[in-house]
């Protein structure tokens, strides 16, 4: 059978003024431990294709996982183009500028399900050794995917992404209610143990067994790397070029302005070797490069794809991401927050009375467009005299991230990869803790 991607492009290019095919295919393997037992082994094979066309001055799009009839995909794209937006860009041709980003480590494919089972068992044994009452769950997986972008301007880019990922979740139901800690990691190269994230989860479980009394008060709070996302999420949303163009971003028209404390620098970087969201190009075929979004507290750039950049009269930042089933849209690759000067342990030791926020519940459900967050702190610790006193329960933490990140007390020198985010801990002052009563 002829290569389906080329076949679709050929047919579409003959019929329309321009065409782009995005083909994503690959396989994943995963091993699931649930509640202290090995539950399931899974193998997935996937293949999907998206077709974007320019027809009579309009953009059309369609996608399918059913490659029995490529002609139907072309028909659907044609129908879509009858109504579509006017394109404000040209499809990029072949480029000399693709950065040399390693994204493929064939050894990921050599990690056998048996080996993954072994890793999970090791984690399970650690958990049982810590407490028979703990319920341990873990999902360990590998993924090999081939991404291919072809267009009628002559671009034909293909690269392989490998990834290995693991999650660990430990929980206990006891007198103090439910205590649940999760940790995860993901990387483009294989790892041979989950003991690091298991150990971290077990350590937090140990600390969480003591409950500290909570009362409503305003205090400094340290957000661990796992919780820093709560502070970043509204800012990332406002940096999205789409919200900027629509006027719904509070950062629209503010390039060059100081928006947060000077210790905050946020980068979007798809060129880090083997990082989860690294790639030589975005999914429109535009070369990637490290992009400073916020530098020293100052707003530097939004993230843009070709169409949004065209509408704003700007250049794309190479941030047009998508799955095969969606049109490209401005998005982030690896989000990197610059490390600070402070040792994490010193930050904790320096808290006279404050809170460490580690896990939250309900993020993204408040008015994040305006920079608001409001979450239940599902795992948080009260600190007095620099020492952890115990876990705070049934409390909410809320605030405006632009205000809070202007009151930064410290940024840790240690950073942690969490999925595609590379983050330090941040201490901010003057946040309201709301407790029952």
């Amino acid at each position: 059978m002829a290569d389906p991607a080329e076949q679709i492009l050929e047919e579409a290019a003959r019929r329309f003024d321009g065409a782009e095919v995005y083909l994503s295919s690959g396989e994943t393997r995963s091993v699931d431990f649930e509640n202290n037992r090995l539950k399931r082994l899974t193998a997935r094979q996937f293949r999907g294709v998206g077709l974007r066309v320019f027809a009579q001055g309009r953009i059309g799009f369609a996608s399918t996982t059913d490659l029995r009839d490529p002609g139907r995909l072309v028909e659907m794209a044609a129908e879509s183009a009858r109504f579509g937006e006017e394109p404000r860009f040209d499809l990029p041709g072949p480029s000399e500028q693709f950065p040399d980003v390693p994204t493929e480590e064939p050894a990921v494919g050599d990690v056998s399900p048996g080996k993954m089972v072994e890793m999970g068992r090791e984690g399970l044994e650690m958990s049982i050794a810590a407490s028979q009452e703990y319920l341990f769950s873990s999902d360990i997986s590998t993924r090999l995917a081939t991404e291919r972008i072809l267009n009628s301007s002559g671009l034909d880019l293909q690269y392989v992404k490998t990834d290995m990922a693991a999650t660990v979740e430990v929980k206990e139901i006891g007198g103090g209610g439910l205590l649940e800690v999760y940790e995860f990691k993901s990387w483009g190269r294989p790892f041979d143990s989950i003991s690091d994230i298991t150990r971290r989860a077990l350590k937090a479980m140990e600390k969480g067994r003591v409950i500290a009394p909570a009362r409503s008060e305003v205090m400094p709070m340290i957000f661990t790397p796992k919780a820093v996302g709560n502070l970043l999420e509204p800012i990332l949303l406002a940096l999205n070029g789409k919200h900027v163009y629509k006027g719904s971003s509070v950062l629209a028209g503010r390039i060059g302005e100081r928006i947060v404390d000077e210790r905050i620098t946020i980068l979007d970087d798809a060129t880090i070797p083997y990082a989860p969201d690294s790639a030589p190009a975005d999914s429109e075929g535009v070369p990637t490069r490290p992009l400073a979004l916020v530098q020293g507290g100052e707003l530097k750039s939004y993230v843009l794809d070709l169409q949004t950049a065209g509408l704003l009269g700007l250049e794309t930042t190479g941030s047009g991401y998508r799955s095969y089933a969606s049109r490209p849209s401005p998005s982030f690759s690896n989000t990197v927050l610059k490390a600070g000067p402070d040792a994490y342990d010193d930050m904790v030791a320096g808290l006279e009375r404050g809170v460490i926020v580690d896990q939250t519940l309900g993020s993204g459900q408040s008015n994040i467009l305006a920079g608001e967050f409001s979450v239940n702190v599902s795992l948080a610790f009260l600190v007095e005299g620099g020492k952890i006193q115990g876990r705070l329960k049934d409390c909410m933490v809320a605030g405006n991230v632009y205000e809070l990140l202007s009151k930064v007390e410290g940024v840790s020198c240690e950073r942690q990869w969490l999925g595609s985010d590379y983050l330090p801990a941040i201490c901010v002052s003057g946040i309201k803790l709301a407790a029952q009563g």
Partner: protein
Amino acid sequence: MSDRRGPSAVAPSCIARRSVETRREEGTVREKLLNICQSVPADFVEVRVHEGSSTSVDYAGKELEDIGERTGLGGCVRVLKDGGWGFTTFNDLSEMEKFAGLALRQAELAGGEAIALAPVEPQTGAYRSSPEIDPADVSLSDKQQLCHSYNQMLLADRRVRTSVVRYRDSVSIRFYANSEGTYLEQQYGFCGLMVVAIAVDGANVQRAYESTGDLRGYGNVLGMEEDCDRVKKRAVDLLDAEPIEAGTYSVIVDPKLCGVFVHEAFGHLSEADHVYENPRLREIMQPGRRFGEDFLSINDDGTLVGEAGFVAYDDEGVPAQCTPLIKDGVLVGRLHNRETAAKMHEEPTGNARAISHTFPPIVRMTNTYLEPGELSFEELLQDTEDGIYAIGMLGGQTDMEMFTFSAEEAYRIRGGKLAEKLREVVLTGNVFKTLADIDAVGRDVKLHGGLGGCGKAGQSPLRVGDGGPHCRIRNVVIGGR
């Protein structure tokens, strides 16, 4: 962790207009799937094939950002052997035998202590939803025109900076066969629409939305002019609302928010997969345990035709049913798949659901609601000296102990009357305690589906319905300022 998504989520994936072609192949599909189930030497084998298509129309501001159709086709095989599950998924159906063999090898590797499945009579059946107006009979041009007119209404107010109008319809054809001889063909058609208005005043950005969506067909999305007006006004009014002061309040929730509350505060806890391998939780979740006052009754009902959570059979081939979860304040039931039912020596309830062929079925809700009480909304309000009236939902989440849910709009209640408008109202509570804090229940039950859906174990969004009447909850912590 499980959550209920509001406006940010996407519509159910998958789904089909190619039913004509598939129908013709019907005989062969049946034989092929049943043959594969018989050919794999295991304790239990099931094969699912999902075919589908969906149509989208997405306006964002003045731009028509997405319009058109997507199609999908895929299958999966699940094998149970000696206490281990193997699961494989694929898009290329010609390789089904290969993936059945792989699923068996996976199951052998996973093997451990025995797993039993609760017995179910082999089923043979077909279901096809028949909406009054089938979205397939409406042209793409008409769908676009409808969305355009709603979008124009939203943008007519100059204080509305931008808008979203999102239309989705989808058809999902699901073929199911297992080694016990069950063979099912089901077709579901979903149709829904969401409108969002975003009002901006300097750094003050406020958003309001309305969403509709279930299996009733294209009629769902017609005549939403009043919704557009309401959304527009609400977004603009929120610009002048004050953030709520953090604290503990008595809260009257409207039917939509009551639905999210029931879903998060109790629904997920009643999913037996959270309980069956957790000895402590089994002790807490003993049938007969009191969770609330006598007027508190909660059901999950998959048989409500047309509602967003309707299923004829679940994705293990078990017929849907109505399952009382709490009756007169007391725990009486829970939601099962065949494995959890066997382990807990209870009956399967038809709640094993998968969002697509790429996932195994897990225990999920269908349509979950609080039964009506006797009070009118006015009576509830008059009886509340000081509190909050919280309306509409942005979303909710639970970790099986704590839960949060957020209101779209809220008012202070003073002396039994609605007072000033408030914003940033995110509520939290404890699943084991909060149901007991419901101290008054209204009589006006409504169920809501909408775009979006429920997420659990990476499977999101699943179409579900939830609802209830107006009701009042005491001691709710709100994390305002």
